[in-house]
């Protein structure tokens, strides 16, 4: 951070703010509410599959909370046999979840200036859904918000698993109520919230084209990496010196969380130093 005054300000407000504030956690959980029906149904579908493949319910719940990544879990449980093909499952998980390197990297503004223990504890419950919801909370992005969404989805996911496992079938087909489309819809809608200006246009088009090409030419979830790679490449190529200002503004907007979580009366410090710059 090169702004004079800004760093000072950060260290002053941070201790009051707290990293995992309970009110922020609650807000994060509420923000993921639209995903409840789909998450519970897909959790139940996974539970049915796990029972067929011979996992115990305990093992399934352990997996759901330790791995916490839906698509990788579906593939892994599908590969599960009496003699577990451990290496295959772990490699498949690594390949499917490779996007988390990018998701983790994009969370930098949320964890900026936070100690390592916050990053270590806050990065576990990061699924695509609560990540996307958190990234679009311009002024609220905060590790607590992210964690709240993650904990909510984790509880719903594990509840779905349990219901499906115990019922062993009779789960409504997610396609009938378009519940499978809920994930597509939430990600498509949240994309709008990530728009930061015309600098996004070309990288986004590249990402769309890259992922479409990947979808038709590559297996599984490689299309995510193809699209993200294309977007990143175009972003790197279209960068110019004079764009720096824009990127600074954008990163600062995320830091605006300080105003949100700061105790009453201290919130106006940030704008004050801003104008005095």
């Amino acid at each position, binding site marked *: 951070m090169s702004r004079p005054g800004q760093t000072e300000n950060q260290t002053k407000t941070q201790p009051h703010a707290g990293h995992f504030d309970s009110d922020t956690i609650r807000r994060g959980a509420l923000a993921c509410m639209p995903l409840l029906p789909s998450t519970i149904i897909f959790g139940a579908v996974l539970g049915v599959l796990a029972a067929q493949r011979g996992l115990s319910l305990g093992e399934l719940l352990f997996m759901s909370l330790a791995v916490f990544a839906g698509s990788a879990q579906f593939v892994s449980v599908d590969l599960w046999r009496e003699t577990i093909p451990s290496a295959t499952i772990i490699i498949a998980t690594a390949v499917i979840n490779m996007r988390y390197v990018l998701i983790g990297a994009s969370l930098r503004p949320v964890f900026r200036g936070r100690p390592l223990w916050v990053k270590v504890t806050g990065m576990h419950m990061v699924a695509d859904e609560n990540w996307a919801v958190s990234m679009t909370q311009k002024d609220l992005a905060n590790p607590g918000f992210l964690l709240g969404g993650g904990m909510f989805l984790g509880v719903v996911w594990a509840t779905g698993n349990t219901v499906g496992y115990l019922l062993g079938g009779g789960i409504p087909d997610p396609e*009938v109520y378009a519940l499978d489309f809920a994930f597509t819809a939430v990600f498509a809608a949240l994309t709008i919230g990530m728009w930061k200006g015309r600098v996004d246009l070309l990288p986004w088009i590249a990402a769309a084209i890259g992922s479409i090409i990947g979808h038709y030419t590559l297996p599984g979830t490689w299309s995510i990496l193809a699209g993200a790679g294309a977007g990143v490449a175009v972003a790197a190529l279209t960068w110019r010196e004079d764009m720096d200002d824009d990127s600074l503004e954008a990163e600062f907007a995320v830091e605006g969380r300080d105003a949100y979580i700061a105790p009453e009366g201290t919130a106006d410090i940030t704008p004050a130093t801003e104008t005095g710059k």
Partner: protein
Amino acid sequence: MTQFPDLTSFSGEAVLTILGMAAVTYGMRLGGLLMADRLPQHGRWAHVLERLPGAVLISVWVPSALSAGAIGIAGAAATVITMALARNLFAAMAVGMVLVGVGRCFIGS
């Protein structure tokens, strides 16, 4: 159900497999963040990192809309348009899902 499933058995093999899955997944989550922390805060890399969430998000849903067929593409378009106009996540999701649900009912996917 022919027999009540064993709920609490943990085989060593299963636990080790799950721990392996968890380790690679968490390693990538935290590793990505720590790697990004080492990138410069300004200039080209900061600019690229700013564009990253949108690029990842688009790459997640565009292929899945294509997989859902023509109705999926229409549903995604309706969702995006509703969100751009109304700025309401619930409304945008509802429009997309209703369109897809009704579309599948009448046209089939």
